[in-house]
């Protein structure tokens, strides 16, 4: 028996994704790197019914923040608002600094320094698209569970400690 680990090319169970790190979800229930943006949803500190949709474009670093009803965020006056700060802080917790920096093409050794190096300005980004992606994300939790065996999930072992 060869004791060497087989190459990733030859493994059915090769690990492709790293598990996301656990974080508190109350403030920023949703963060994703998709559609060329770091984007997410930030709960309002004052109104439980309201959420803000915040996004930063990879590469150009234009950003935007508005309510889910497309009202501009009052905190966005020529500089990123506190929601954008929360978005980046939580993204760094969830995905790690390196992945976020690489995706945005931003330099920095912390969430704060990423924010300081954000060179773009406010840009129009449709909140509705991001918000509907958040709703789709939440809709997973509404799907009924099943006792039909999903044999296909043998390809997806629970993401544990990296050996």
């Amino acid at each position, binding site marked *: *028996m*060869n004791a060497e680990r087989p190459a*990733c*090319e030859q493994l059915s169970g090769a690990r492709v*994704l790293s598990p996301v790190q656990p974080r508190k979800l*109350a403030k920023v229930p949703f963060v994703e790197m998709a559609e060329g943006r770091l984007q997410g949803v930030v709960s309002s500190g004052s109104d439980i019914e309201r959420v803000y949709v915040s996004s930063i474009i990879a590469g150009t670093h234009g950003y935007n923040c508005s309510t889910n009803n497309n009202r501009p965020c009052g905190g966005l006056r020529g500089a990123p608002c506190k929601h954008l700060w929360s978005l980046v802080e939580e993204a760094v917790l969830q995905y790690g600094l390196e992945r976020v920096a690489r995706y945005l093409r931003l330099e920095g050794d912390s969430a704060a320094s990423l924010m300081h190096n954000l060179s773009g300005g406010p840009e129009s980004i449709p909140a509705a698209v991001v918000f509907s992606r958040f709703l789709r994300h939440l809709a997973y939790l509404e799907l009924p*569970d*099943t006792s039909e065996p999903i044999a296909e999930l043998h390809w997806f072992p*629970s993401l544990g400690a990296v050996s």
Partner: protein
Amino acid sequence: MLGTQLTALHDGALPGVDEAVDLIAGFDDALVNGFARLGEERTAALVALAGAVGGTPLGPAAAEAAEKIGAGSISEEHLTTLAGARTALFGAVHDALLDRLDSALGRTRAAWEGAQPQSTDPLAGACRSWLAELAITGWRGVDHDLASAADQAIQNLLAEPRLRRLAMLLDGLAAELRASSPIGAMARLPARRWADLWARASLLTKTGSLEATERVSGRLLPLGVDIHEHGTAAQIQIHAILEPQGRLVRTSVAAAKVDTISGPFVWQLLSSYPVLLGALAKRLSLEITDMPLLPGGDLLWQEGKASSGPSSDPFAAARVQLSGASAPAVPPLERHPVRIAEPVFIEGYRSDGHTLQLDGASLAFDLDRLPTSGPLTPQLLKASTACIGLMRWDGGQWRLQPLAVQANVKKELLAVHNGDWAQGPTDQKVLKSYAKAGDPVAVLKERAGRLLRK
């Protein structure tokens, strides 16, 4: 499992297995580069794959598919046929491996008597065209747009409970492709894995669910729980012995989730199964009455047909009853090495945390299948002297996936099980970080309740 059984498992190469895996690797390489740009060598690889199933009913169609695809005329039908040929070859590898394992263990296995229904669901058909597009483009050509192109089709699948298997498979594959895009920039591709998922999905678009063939009653003695998870799905699969019949069975429950719910929190998604989770957390047996059983040995779990039974120590069950228990047949479509997950019990070994040594034979632990949703750690494996686990085979090697160990910790013999946290973590350190993270399931369900119904 004894040292002599472990030696028998590794005794001599399995005829035909290396050759079959080489043919599969040729197909996988063609899929990396895309069927639109095959070239001579990769066309030959497809022809060789088709040739290997030449003596089966699939033979003529596979030969035609390889020839047509090589000539640049690619249809969904041809692609599905080749996916079938690759699956048939891996099926033969699976059979050889499982045969070897069964004879090493002296395990008897039932013959397959079920039927595999076909399906022509249009929702599944919509995904087949995405799978064809992927094959034509090749993994190297997949960018963010193509990786996301089936998102809506997958959402439609997810909404349909009878298509859950295909939906969870495709959702897992699409997430990996999205996160890896543009894939052309990746240094190393998981070629085997993605070809597996692609072929499996292609066939699943045409097959329906298995039907229960009998109803069983008796006492279930749980051996352990295997936990599967990707960003948007979690499944627990319990391996157990059904008494008095002495049959090995599995039972599973699966839930959809999001990536921010993982580790110990996945149990919360399954809180509507208190009888099942309670048996895991409290190490109880389960009394079942008229529970439907699929021909592949899977009980379709229904809480209403089950109740908690007396205490049952999985190590006692494994030590006494496992070696004589009979194993179920494997459904034809599930004959793939990755699906081999045979419960075994091994004791009296020495371990360095990576590999166990028993009577001169050795077996590596499958550390990639050690979930964070339970208390098992590499340190415990190192201190362990007995293990209930699943035999796994991947990349040409047998490995042991631990479900439970007995380990010497501070001069005390402890039994630690994957399912110990089924009703919440019992470890103080984990409880503390658990409390600190807040309850992601509750937070997201509150958000969903407030925002989804507007």
